[in-house]
């Protein structure tokens, strides 16, 4: 069998055979040198490795391998001639062209206690070296990237809103990141069209303090084009600091020996992007902060109490003025339901429900509730008159987010109002006595109680009487107005036949109408219901309105009084075809001293209080008053009064 034959051939070879096998099959080149440094043996691989075609036994190993080979050894290759120790020696060499790297190994050969020579092996380790170099390059790259990443992550650790601290931190990080000593941050100042250096590590002469936008400095170029720029001489790199396509400034870096490249641009851009966010945040923060400070100043120093409450009605803002008004510390008030705070401050006579109602109204209906007067009681028990307004606070989407209440201390106003009304009432009393005396004496003289008068005397005394009467009316109006304002008007309402009362008033004013050739007509209506009113006050209302209609009518025209039932109210209208009221002045009409000036009003006289009093009297009866008018075409004043309920007839 062929297999068994082969097995026989592979049987233990002779010593010579073994040497031959080793020589031909060993994977490394080898050479044996005798103790004299002469070549004894070598294999083909050794020859191939060094291109030593003519290598022969007996050659000087040192001469062939060291002097003639062109190999460059890492240290003195004495091992080719002698081995000074019994230890194994390793040597490395590069071929002359550097294309191959060889590892030599030298082992002493000895037997029977005698040195017999050196056994050299050589191995081409070029691929191994190349791999190692490659690995080293990669490792160093990785290391650099690691360092860069670390620097970049350090950058993201720079936070806050104080730019004067952020800039220096950035400078030192960028310095490490790009291994560059010169780093500056520039921010654009629109007012000056200039980039101004905010912070720098550069020594004098490297990065200018200010760069005009119009200049040819690379920093200006980078800003204008919003593109990074690498400069060659001197080596430098500039990148724009951009936030949402808005260029805020430039970072300039220079001073590194190695030229800057794309990678540096990328790194610096990352840093710039992060810086832009920080700058923008800081600007926003500072802006909001200064606004907040301004509002806080308003809030803190306002004389008015300001309370802000959230959607649940809890107090989230409570200023010192409120604290003073309610005798409640800010800390005590915060978080409390505002309704509860208001209710506990309500005084007798003011329903606690009423006072707290606006809190919910404002939040649920988004209504503004203006100025209602309340007597509030502070924790101490002191009471104070206040005027409270409520308003919702909306977000940009128009949704109610919270509410605000302004509490004004109206105590002084009240007191002034009271002093004023006391003053008026005292003055009025003091005026009335002499006016009554003048009126009384004059009336007796005019009645000729104490003897005859000639025509002039009679006429003039009548004039004095009329003037005095006007003064009496004026005092009465002033006093009425002052009582209306202090809410002291008392009504004694009873069912009244208004048509009859109107005829009486027209009868009294009739002579005035005749004087001015004005006809007063009272429309006759059947079965008019009675109205519920104070007869003196209703008379006053009618006198005022009819008198006004006469005053502002053209001679020869007509004044009409008409009545109409509307639901449970009776509407009385007094129309004239006089001068009318300009639209712009209608609102003023019912205000105190809101007399509308026109050619006739000068002639008409009056206190300017008439319609103010009338309006308030009508309203305190539960009625309304309004006017329809066209300038030059006349006016129609209408007022409503509640109809008196029919009393069951007594049998």
């Amino acid at each position, binding site marked *: 069998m062929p297999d068994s034959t082969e097995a026989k051939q592979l049987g233990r070879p002779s010593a010579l055979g073994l040497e031959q096998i080793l020589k031909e099959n060993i994977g490394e080149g080898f050479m044996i040198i005798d103790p004299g440094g002469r070549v004894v043996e070598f294999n083909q691989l050794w020859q191939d490795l060094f291109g030593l075609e003519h290598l022969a036994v007996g050659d000087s190993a040192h001469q062939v391998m060291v002097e003639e080979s062109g190999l460059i050894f890492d240290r003195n290759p004495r091992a080719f001639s002698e081995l000074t120790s019994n230890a194994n020696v390793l040597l490395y060499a590069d071929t002359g062209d550097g294309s191959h790297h060889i590892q030599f190994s030298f082992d002493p050969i000895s037997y029977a206690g005698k040195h017999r020579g050196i056994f050299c092996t050589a191995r081409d380790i070029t691929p191994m070296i190349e791999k190692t170099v490659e690995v080293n390059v990669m490792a160093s790259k990785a290391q650099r990237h690691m360092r860069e990443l670390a620097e970049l992550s350090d950058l993201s650790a720079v936070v806050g809103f104080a730019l004067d601290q952020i800039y220096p931190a950035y400078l030192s990080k960028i310095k490490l990141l790009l291994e560059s000593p010169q780093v500056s941050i520039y921010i654009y100042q629109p007012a000056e069209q200039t980039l101004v250096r905010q912070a720098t590590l550069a020594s004098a002469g490297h990065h200018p303090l200010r760069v005009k936008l119009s200049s040819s400095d690379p920093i200006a170029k980078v800003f204008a084009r919003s593109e990074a720029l690498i400069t060659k001489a001197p080596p430098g790199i500039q990148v724009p600091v951009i936030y949402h396509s808005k260029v805020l400034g430039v970072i300039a870096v220079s001073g590194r020996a190695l030229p800057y490249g794309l990678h540096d641009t990328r790194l610096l851009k990352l840093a710039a992007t992060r810086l832009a966010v920080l700058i923008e945040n800081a600007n926003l923060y500072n802006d909001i902060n200064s606004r907040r400070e301004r509002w806080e100043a308003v809030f803190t120093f306002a004389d008015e109490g300001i309370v802000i409450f959230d959607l649940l009605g809890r107090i989230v803002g409570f200023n010192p003025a409120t604290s003073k008004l309610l005798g409640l510390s800010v800390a005590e008030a915060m978080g409390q339901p505002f309704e509860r705070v208001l209710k506990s401050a309500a005084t007798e006579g003011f329903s606690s429900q009423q006072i707290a109602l606006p809190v919910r109204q404002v939040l649920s209906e988004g209504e503004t509730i203006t100025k209602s007067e309340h007597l509030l009681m502070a924790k101490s028990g002191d009471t104070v008159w206040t005027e409270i307004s409520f308003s919702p606070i909306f977000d940009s989407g128009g949704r109610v987010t919270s509410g605000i209440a302004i509490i004004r201390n109206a105590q002084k106003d009240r007191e002034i109002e009271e002093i004023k009304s006391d003053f008026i009432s005292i003055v009025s009393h003091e005026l009335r006595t002499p006016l009554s*005396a003048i*009126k009384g004496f004059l009336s*007796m003289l005019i*009645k000729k*109680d104490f003897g005859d008068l000639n025509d002039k005397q009679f006429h003039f005394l009548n004039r004095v009487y009329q003037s005095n009467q006007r003064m009496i009316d004026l005092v009465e109006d002033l006093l009425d107005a002052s009582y209306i304002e202090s809410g*002291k*008007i*008392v009504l004694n309402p009873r069912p009244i036949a208004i048509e009859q009362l109107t005829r009486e008033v027209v009868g009294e004013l009739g002579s005035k109408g005749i004087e001015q050739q004005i006809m007063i007509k009272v429309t006759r209506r059947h079965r008019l219901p009675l109205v519920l009113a104070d007869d003196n006050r209703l008379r006053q209302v009618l006198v005022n309105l009819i008198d006004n209609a006469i005053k502002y009518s053209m001679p020869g025209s007509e004044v009409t009084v008409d009545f109409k039932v509307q639901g449970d109210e009776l509407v009385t209208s007094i129309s004239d075809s006089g001068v009318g009221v300009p639209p712009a002045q209608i609102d003023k009409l019912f205000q105190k001293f809101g007399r509308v000036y026109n050619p006739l009003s000068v002639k008409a006289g009056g206190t300017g209080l008439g319609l103010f009093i009338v309006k308030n009297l009508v309203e305190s009866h539960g009625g309304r008053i309004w006017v329809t008018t066209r300038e030059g075409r006349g006016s129609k004043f209408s007022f409503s009064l509640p109809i008196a309920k029919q009393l069951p007839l007594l049998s």
Partner: protein
Amino acid sequence: MAKIMLAEDDAILVEMYQAKFELEGHEILVATNGEECLALLKEYLPDLILLDILMPKLNGFHVLKEIKKQPNLRNIPVILLTNLGEAEVDMNRELASALGVSDYLIKSHHTPDEVVEKVMRALAGASGHL
């Protein structure tokens, strides 16, 4: 002819009403404050009292309350004659009518002539009741 008691602190107004009432042939006795009025009423019974409200010492309402307490005075008609305004009169009107006044006149609204007329009407009403 009627006997009238006038309680009034203002001398000029006293002179005015006195002149008018005397001219009309009435007898008039004047008190210049509330206390004096009550003192005079102890000796003198008028047919009607014209009573001012704002007077020194004792105001008209106090005098009125005293008068209504005394059986011999209770039925004498009283007309309040005041310089208060309409609004104040309205405030006191209920009190006045509760105290049984015959009329409540505002001086500046009425000439002496009209006051005499009101007095006569009140006297006629009072005698009508008797």
